[in-house]
Structures are given as C-alpha cells and as structure tokens.
C-alpha cells in the first residue's frame, strides 16, 4: 500500500478551458512539499480539483490518497478520508458559529449513534486556539464573518488542527498575513508535521518557506510540474524569477 498523496497525469478544465495539463507529483507521508509558480500556472486549480470542487472537470489522470482513489469520492467524503484544504479565500458562513461548525465536522467523522464529547471537544479547541493566539470570542462568532484576512487564515489552521488530516494542501495561506501572523500559522503547521502526515504548500513567495521548511519544491507552469528540487530552489526562484525555468523545455 502506497503511503502518499499521489497525483498522476492530471488534466482538469474549467468552463471547457484546460488548466491542468498532465500534472504529476507525489507527496509521501512525513514530507512537506511546496508548489511555486507564476500567476495563472494552475496552483489554485490544483487545490480545488483535489478537494473536489464541481466547477472543475477532471478529464484524465488520477489522485490517490494512500490507496484511496479520491476522484471516486464526494467532496465531504474526501475530507473524511483524511484530506484537508486550507482555503486561500475562506468562505463566510453567517449565523453558524465556529464552534458548531467544527463540532459538526467532527461529528461527521463519528460512527452513527456516537456523539462528540462536548467537554473534551471544547477543552481541545481552546488549547489549539491558545496555540494559534486566537481569542476565545472566535468560538461564538459566525464562521469567518467579519474576520480579518489573518484571522481567517488562522481559522483555517485551527480547523486543520482539529480535523487532523492525513494530507493537507495549504493554498496561499501566507497571502494577506503580516509577519507575526505568518510565524504563528507556521508554528501551527510545524507542530503538526509528523511521519504520519504529508503537506503540500502552495505559495507565490518564498517567505512562508523560511518558516515552514519544505523537503521538496516543485515549480508549476502552464498546468504541469516543470521542475523539482530541494528547499534551496525556493531561494533561487525568489532571486532569479521563473523565466530561467519556464523557458527551458518542460521536464518529463
């Protein structure tokens, strides 16, 4: 049994327009991979396709989470199977409190007839909020409503910590964060790094990778991974831009 998030020859389009054109990569359990790439290369499309957003149509290829074929699962089933997407633009859900939302997400993971232990749940949630420097008032507030950009991103990390996925994709989690918030978010992610979990971090800037040091860096361009290297690749990209890679013939 393969212990990885494995994407093979993925083709996906939106409104009939092909965005991913044969993307392949593998994030083994225990590793942190980063995907960098210029605007429009398909970074956010990749995250939505893995999560199962219905605006995106997969025309070819496969996505496996360990030995589970994710493409055969509904959006909520993928989450319960152990996949997590930290959204670039988390949605606001008026009238649904953060605590009730998280509780429902946890409840959905329990066998029928079992109930979330409320006391233990709150204790755990408070501890994790403390870790992220989130005020307790956020438990009673509607999900993401009126949150600042940084608060929304912290809330995404809180959800990830509460749901303990096997594999997580963080979609431009660093955008809109000041340096202090970035450090806190990175600490949260680093605390979750484990041999039992894989991360794929989508980012536009190398800055986040100073705090969440990746094992592998991929470069995405025109819907394909065109270059893969170690963490030093991020610095190289920051310094030289993307042209030196994108103008090379695509790596197989």
């Amino acid at each position, binding site marked *: 049994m393969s212990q990885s998030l494995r994407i093979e020859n993925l083709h996906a389009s939106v409104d009939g327009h092909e965005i991913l054109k044969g993307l392949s990569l593998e994030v083994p359990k225990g590793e942190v991979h980063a995907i960098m790439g210029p605007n429009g290369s398909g970074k956010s499309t990749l995250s939505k396709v893995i999560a199962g957003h*219905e605006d995106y149509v997969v025309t070819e290829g496969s996505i496996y989470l360990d030995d589970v074929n994710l493409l055969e699962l509904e*959006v909520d089933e993928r989450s319960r199977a152990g996949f997590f*997407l930290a959204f670039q633009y988390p*949605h606001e*859900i008026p*009238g649904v409190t953060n605590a009730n939302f998280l509780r429902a*997400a946890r409840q*959905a993971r329990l066998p029928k007839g079992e109930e979330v232990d409320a006391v233990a749940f709150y204790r755990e949630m408070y501890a994790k909020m403390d870790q992220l420097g989130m005020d307790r008032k956020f438990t009673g507030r*509607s999900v993401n409503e009126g949150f600042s950009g940084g608060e929304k991103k912290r809330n995404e990390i809180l959800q990830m910590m509460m749901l303990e996925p096997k594999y997580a994709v963080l979609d431009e989690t660093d955008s809109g964060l000041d340096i202090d918030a970035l450090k806190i978010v990175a600490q949260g992610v680093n605390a979750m790094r484990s041999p039992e979990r894989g991360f794929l971090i989508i980012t536009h800037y190398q800055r986040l990778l100073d705090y969440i040091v990746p094992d592998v860096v991929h470069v995405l361009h025109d819907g394909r991974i065109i270059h893969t290297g170690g963490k030093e690749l991020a610095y190289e990209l920051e310094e030289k831009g993307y042209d030196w890679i994108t103008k090379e013939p695509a790596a197989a």
Partner: protein
Amino acid sequence: MSMVLTSPEETTSRPAADWCEAPPVTDADAKLPEWYRSLRAEAWERFRGTPAPARTNQAWRFADLKHVRFEGYAPALPLAESVVADLVARAVGERPADYAAHFVFANSRLIHAETPGLPEAALCLPVGETLLTQPERIRGHFLQHEDFLGGEKFASLHAAATLSGLFVCLPKGCVVTHPVIVHHFVGGDGAVIFPHTLVVAEDQSSVSVFDLFESITPGEETLIVAMADLHADHGGRIQYAALQDLGDTGAKHVQLQHTRAGRDASVKVGFVNLGSGWIRNESVNRMVESGADCQIFAANLANGVQEYDQRTLQSHEAQHTTSDLLFKNALYDRSRTIFSGLIQVQPGAHHTDSYQTCRNLLGSDEAEANSMPGLEIDADQVKCSHGSTSGTISDEEIFYLRARGIPSEDARKMISLGFLHEAIEKLDGEALQDFLFARVEKKFAAIG
C-alpha cells in the same frame, strides 16, 4: 404578590350562536368598570362598521384574501380539567430555563401562574383580573391605540372581545432580570381567542416578556387575534418576543403590536413564526421622544402552503431617535411571505438613524417572497437605509462546509438554521435564544 386564578365564568362568557351578530363577550359581568364596557361597545361598533380587507387596499397588497375571514368562529370553550392538567404539564415542561414568572392561558382562561423571580413592586396580573380588581391601574394604557397597518378591523374585534392575557407594569426603577413567560393555548374546531399583552415600563425600569402561541391539538381550525401593546417611559427598557408555533394547518394567527418609546427608552421586539396556515403581523413602532430606540426582528420558517404576511412601521416622531429592523424568512415548498416595511421620519425628527432589512432564503423554486421596503423622510440630517434581498444558499458556502467533511444535507440545514439564528441572536437572554432556536430546529427537522 398574590395571585388569584380567575374562574372561567369571569373571563369568558357563553359563545353566541352567531357571534358576528353580537359581541363575542357579553356584558353579563356587571363588575367590569363602566369605562371599559363603553370602550368595548365602541370597538364592537367600529368592527361592524369597518369593511373587510379588499383586494384594492394597498395595505393588503400581495395577500391572499381567501385567508381573511371573520365568520365561522366562536369564542373558545372552557376545557375539561384533565386537558387543563395536561396543558399545564406541557407548558411547564417546555419553557426557557430562566424565567421571572410564568402564566398559562388556555382558551382564554388562566390555568397556571407562578412568579418565582418577580420583584414585589412589579405588577403582573391577567388583564381580566386587573379590570375587576384594580381597573384604574390599566385604564391609561389599555386599548388606547387603534391605528394599525390595515388590520384595523381585527384591532376593533380584539378590543371588543379581549379579556385574556397579561398586564405587566413596572414601577420606576424596577428591574426584572429574567423573562415573564406567557403561554396562550387555543383548541377546538372553530375556536377563537383574543390574547392581549400590555407592558408598561415606567422610568428606568426593565422587563422582558415572552408570549408563546400554541395549538392544543394541531390541525384544528382556530383563530387567534392577539395584540401586544408596549409602553416604555423615560429610560425604560422592554423586550417583547412572540413565538407562534401553532399547528401548521387550520390555525390562523393575527398579531398586532404597538410600541410607544419615550425619552431614551429602548424597546426590542422579536417575532418567530413557525406554524399556522396563515399569519398576519402588524408591528407599529413609535419613537415619540428624543433618544428613543426600537429594534424589531423576525425569524420565520415557512413550508407547505403557509402564508406569512408581515407589515411594519418605524415611526420617528422626535429628534435623535434610532431604530433597526431585521426580518428573515426561510421559505420551502410553496410557502409565501410578504414583508412590507415603512420607515417614516416625521417633520422635525432630525438626526434620525434608521435601518430596515428583509432577507429571504428560498429553499424551493415554488416558494414566493414579496418585499416592499419603504422610506418617507421629512426631516434633516437623517441616516436611513432600507433593503431587501432574496436568494438561495450559495454553492460556495455548501462547498466550504462539505470540504470539512459535513455531508451536503447537513450543510444545507446548518446554513438555513444559521440564517434564522442571526435574527434570534439579536434578542437578549441566552435561555430564551436557546429555546427559540430549539423550536426552529424542531420545525426544520420536520421539513427534512
């Protein structure tokens, strides 16, 4: 405070065979004060002289007038003792956790009263009993307001007939922490009741009153013509919440509400409608002295062929007055809602701050939400806004919840409940909020 349970003979009279030809409550009880008897007689004449709502009447625009009918009802009959005992048990078993007092009326008769958290100075007495024992206490405020928003014929009928419901009077500075809960049960095919709620908060006093309207047996043809009349004097604070959770077929519910907010007074009104085949709410909120503030909220969950018709007025009659209105309708199946709201800034009511929002969440293609927001401004330096929106649950909200593992149906339910919760959470009192929310959830579970 002493409490007397009035006997049925004192609060209701025998039903007239054809009650539209004679007042539903007769003057058999000579102990009622003369001023009240003439007020009632005049109201009956007004009722007789006022035409029934017609299609051409703007105040009934969009309303399906087939629901509006006065004939075929008779005042509800007294209930058997075993039924009364069951109702008391039901009311006591299902009430918000915190309360200062709890009164239960069934078919217009008081069947239960307890006042564990009521300060000595606060007066909480059935309207009928007040008229018999201390009529001068109630005279200044009782049934003084006749103008509503199209429902004047109902108002006159109510005035001619009411003898049930509660008079709550807070003397200067008296603060009641927890709500005064009042249950109103109606039962029997063709039964009509006329519950009245009169709240008078004198200077710097504060009280919360919660009316619950429920069917004894769902499915019966019943009519409620209720009125809530709220008076907050200088710095007084009133919260009034009404839950209409009648059987959703057969039952009809008319509730007229009037607020008079004085200097620096604040009044909060909340309607939650879940049951009834047809309802008509009219909410008249008058800010008559500077600093007065009114907040009006509604959370309505309609399904089947229910029609919820709500008309509101925010009347700013003095400088530096503020008001805010938020009505939320969640509609399923072939249900209909009508919201007509007017903000009126009277001449000279400068520096008014007034807002009005109606939001409709359409859970079905066949549901119909009608909104008519309105503004009339006759003063300067006024901040007003009004708006109404209708829409379905956004796919992106559903996707977000599903991406956390919550199944699609649960996600829809959470978002719909959250939509209504936003109005309910504007009310004060956690136990009250929880209670109302649980009832909304219960109805939602029935919709499926």
